[in-house]
């Protein structure tokens, strides 16, 4: 499902074009089986977001082998990469909703990009909005929504196309305990329906409440798997 073998990552240096940053991920190897659920934890700056970016094809590794949904990503064609991305739902740490689209259109966006029919899209968006408890907010623009509501719209957009793999980057970071609890219930429900789920967090209370194997990284190295 998700396979990393000795994966290293550096970023291009912002201040010195052409140069690379020191390694952000160092020799990471792990495997997550289909339908599994994993916490991804570690201190801030350890490399959690970077590792997730490699999984959702937002960065290329400096070296190492990565397979996502059974597909080696190294030499994947651009359109194949797009098709693979459509099977991965991502809840970004900073939501990344499109500011000019209302809640409904933000949720519908991945399906419209996949050229699904409007009839189809409509049914799914209504259902998922009910599921995240925001049916009454469908016409609201992101700036009109609270942080918790934006978070749930972001989750709805990530899961509306029933992805095989769901990646959530600190999805409870901006939420109070009640809202965080609610989001976790949504994610574990999806996992029970067969979706592979990876959740990055450094909230240990949350991890204790929802026990699952954890990948822990510190300074770019994997220090715990299981």
């Amino acid at each position, binding site marked *: 499902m998700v396979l990393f073998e000795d994966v290293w990552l550096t970023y291009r240096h912002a201040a010195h074009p052409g140069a690379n940053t020191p390694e952000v991920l160092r020799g990471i190897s792990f495997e997550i089986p289909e339908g599994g659920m994993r916490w991804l934890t570690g201190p801030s700056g350890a490399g959690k977001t970077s590792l997730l970016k490699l999984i959702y094809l937002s960065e290329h590794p400096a070296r190492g082998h990565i397979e996502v949904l059974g597909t080696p990503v190294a030499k994947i064609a651009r359109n194949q990469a797009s098709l693979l991305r459509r099977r991965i739902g991502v809840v970004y740490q900073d939501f990344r909703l499109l500011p000019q*689209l209302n809640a409904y259109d933000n949720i519908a966006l991945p399906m419209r990009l996949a050229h699904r029919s409007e009839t189809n899209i409509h049914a799914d968006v209504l259902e998922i909005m009910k599921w995240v408890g925001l049916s009454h907010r469908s016409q609201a623009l992101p700036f009109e929504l609270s942080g918790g509501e934006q978070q749930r719209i972001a989750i709805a957009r990530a899961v509306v196309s029933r992805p095989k793999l769901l990646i959530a980057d600190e999805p409870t970071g901006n939420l109070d305990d009640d809202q965080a609890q609610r989001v976790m219930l949504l994610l574990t429900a999806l996992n029970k329906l067969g979706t592979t789920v990876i959740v990055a967090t450094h909230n240990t209370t949350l991890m204790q409440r929802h026990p699952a194997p954890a990948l822990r990284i510190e300074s770019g190295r994997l220090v715990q798997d299981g």
Partner: protein
Amino acid sequence: MANLPHPPADFLGLRTALSDRLLPLLVGAMAFLAALGIAGAEASASLAAHWQQDAAAALTIQVPDPQAQDAGNDATRLAAVLGALKTVPAAMNVAQLSPAAVNQLLSPWLGTDPADLGLPLPAVITAHWAGAGGVGALRAALQKLSPGTLVDTGALWTGRVAALTTSLQACAAAVLIIVALIGAAVVSVATHAGLAQRRETIVIVHELGAFDGDIASLIARRILRLTVTGALTGTALALPVLAWLARLAAPFAAPSLSTALLGLPAPLWAALPALPVLAAFIGWGTAQLTVRGWLRTLP
């Protein structure tokens, strides 16, 4: 289903990122220039065609010592030449210039009436050459008949006019190519600016699984609309100017600007509508290449 919500037409926010001001204005100015360039080339071509016909067809024959008789010939040299010309069907409107007319032609060069100088003047015959080929055979025949006879056509002029036309048309083509290249550059810059302004949105759409081709099409369609608008406006604005120029060239042929417009030559009427089409191709193609190239910098 009855009332499905409409998908937003402009979810990339291109209407503000690629505004309908600057690009149509620049493309319009370039279409205007291109229209003038095409008109100039067309005008010089048709003018040259006229000159060329006239010059090529004008035949001038000089017979020195016109009243003398060559040995073995019982007519004067002039009569012999005139007689021979009558038997050549391609030589039409054969006419001898009167001595007075020849004097008149020459006096500006000589400063006084040539008759006063007692110069022996050649007889000058003009004709209209309607033959398909050159006048080589005629020249040889007349030379043989009355040695010293000179046969001239405007061939030299024809060559010069042809060279002039070719260079004018090359200039017009160069103008068109340069305008097209600048147009492509302008579209590329505008597209890059729009991409930079919508970078965040486009990266998200890309990561949600949009094909490069779909993103490029959305942006290229917007650019297409802007360039076609600009080119149509620029070409339309060039029309009154062209009519005005046409009227300057032939004030009596066209009593008003609108009739002058209708009187513009057919090739011009064929070329002008091609400008917006050309602009559309350049705009769409450049935008496609620019966006696809830019997207390739994303993972």
